[in-house]
């Protein structure tokens, strides 16, 4: 407005919104973000409650406590951003920088916990897509076939070695034992009488031997088809200390080199939605952390209050999304 001296005061410029351009754009951006995450969360709800079966949290090695800790961490970081803004407004750049640094640290802690959680999934073969994913939806002939093929592959690569150590001989013996004791009887029974309860039971036992699901062993909460069950279904379960969340140990846990196919009903949909939702959220966290790192290089005085506020708005939104993701993913 360099020409403001040239015209009469009657024609003074009136801004459309009583806020700065930066803030207007941040809010416009956030309103698109609201719709973006509403779409993701809405789709999750449809898939989750429309699914015939859905794994319980312990079936997929999801620990509620880490979700709660992460919620706490993000709430703390929201407070530190607000305090940084207050300090900057009061012309206290060093204090503002301190709060900002703390926010950066808290955001990094959040991502660290998320990575730790992701690792727990990956180490159990829970990937959103092949070739890494070992998930099968049901214990049918295809599952038994996949187990057999994996065992054959393992055995073949072991037999190819000319000189085998004692440990490798033990591995071959174990592979033979699994094939003879579990895979063959199941495959034979289902071949003799397709769809017979005996065959299905053996297939189920095979999958349970490899990857026992906590919900089956504990008999608890939301086990398989909490969503599909009638209105009388409650979370109430039989006795058993489920809070201890001790995972039952299967062949894949005892012998991690086996990496046999695992059977989790609804498992594929679960990994897809879980990684999509938490992944997009984590991306937003990373963007926020970059913004904080850039802010840390500046002198955070009153002149920068607007900038801190805008980035703070973004960060609060990231917190907001997690507030909904935590109960939906961990507690429902």
């Amino acid at each position, binding site marked *: 407005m360099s020409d403001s001296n040239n015209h009469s005061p009657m024609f003074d410029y009136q801004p459309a919104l009583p806020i700065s351009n930066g803030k207007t754009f941040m809010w416009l951006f956030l309103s698109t973000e609201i719709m973006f995450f509403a779409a993701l969360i809405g789709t999750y709800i449809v898939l989750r409650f429309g699914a015939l079966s859905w794994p319980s949290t312990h079936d997929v090695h999801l620990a509620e406590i880490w979700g709660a800790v992460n919620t706490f961490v993000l709430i703390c970081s929201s407070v530190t951003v607000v305090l940084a803004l207050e300090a900057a407004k009061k012309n206290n750049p060093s204090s503002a920088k301190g709060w900002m640094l703390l926010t950066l640290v808290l955001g990094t802690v959040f991502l660290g916990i998320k990575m730790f959680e992701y690792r727990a999934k990956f180490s159990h073969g829970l990937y959103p897509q092949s070739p890494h994913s070992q998930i099968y939806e049901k214990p049918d002939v295809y599952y038994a076939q996949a187990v057999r093929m994996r065992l054959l592959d393992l055995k073949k690569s072991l037999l190819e070695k000319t000189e085998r150590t004692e440990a490798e001989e033990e591995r071959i013996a174990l592979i033979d034992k699994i094939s003879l004791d579990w895979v063959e009887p199941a495959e034979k029974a289902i071949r003799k009488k397709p769809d017979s309860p005996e065959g299905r039971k053996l297939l189920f036992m095979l999958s349970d031997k490899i990857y026992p699901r906590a919900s089956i*062993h504990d008999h608890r909460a939301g086990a398989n088809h909490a969503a599909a069950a009638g209105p009388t279904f409650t*979370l109430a379960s039989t006795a058993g200390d489920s809070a201890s969340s001790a995972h039952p140990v299967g062949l894949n846990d005892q012998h991690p080199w086996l990496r046999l196919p695992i059977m989790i009903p609804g498992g594929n949909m679960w990994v897809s939605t879980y990684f999509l939702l938490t992944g997009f959220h984590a991306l937003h966290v990373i963007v926020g952390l970059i913004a904080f790192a850039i802010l840390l290089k500046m002198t955070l005085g009153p002149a920068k209050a607007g900038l801190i506020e805008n980035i703070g708005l973004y960060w*609060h939104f990231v917190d907001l999304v997690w507030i909904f993701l935590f109960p939906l993913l961990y507690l429902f």
Partner: protein
Amino acid sequence: MSIQDEKSLQHDDHEGHGSTSLYVSVFIALCCLTSLSFLTYFDFWRNTVPVGFSRAFMLAVSCIKALLVITFFMHLKWEANWKWMLTVPASLMAIFLMAVLVPDIGLRMQHASYERMIYAAEVPADEDTAHDTDGHDDKAHSPSDKAEH
């Protein structure tokens, strides 16, 4: 807009903002609400509260937390009326989006095929050799007669 305008604008904008003590009390409220929803995880809650109520409770807690963050941390409490212009349409769109998905939730899996039912990954019951094709036999067994191994 001149720098002076912007400064005065910012001054108006931020007048009457919350104090540190207010932010700390909002923080404490958020922590309490988080622990409230975390309560649903424990056995005593699961054994006494129906799952539908539990879920409604968790969503209500989340909505209260979200409102606290928006109102105080995002300063919407102290903003002028423009806030409605930006937040209401976006929220409406979000709600519509959820609403059009509702028929899917209601209708999906009302009828599952027999093949899906028998491989729904429960331990098959011994006595269900003579199944009817409606496929409701497996479902009829409550979780208590599964997992007999």
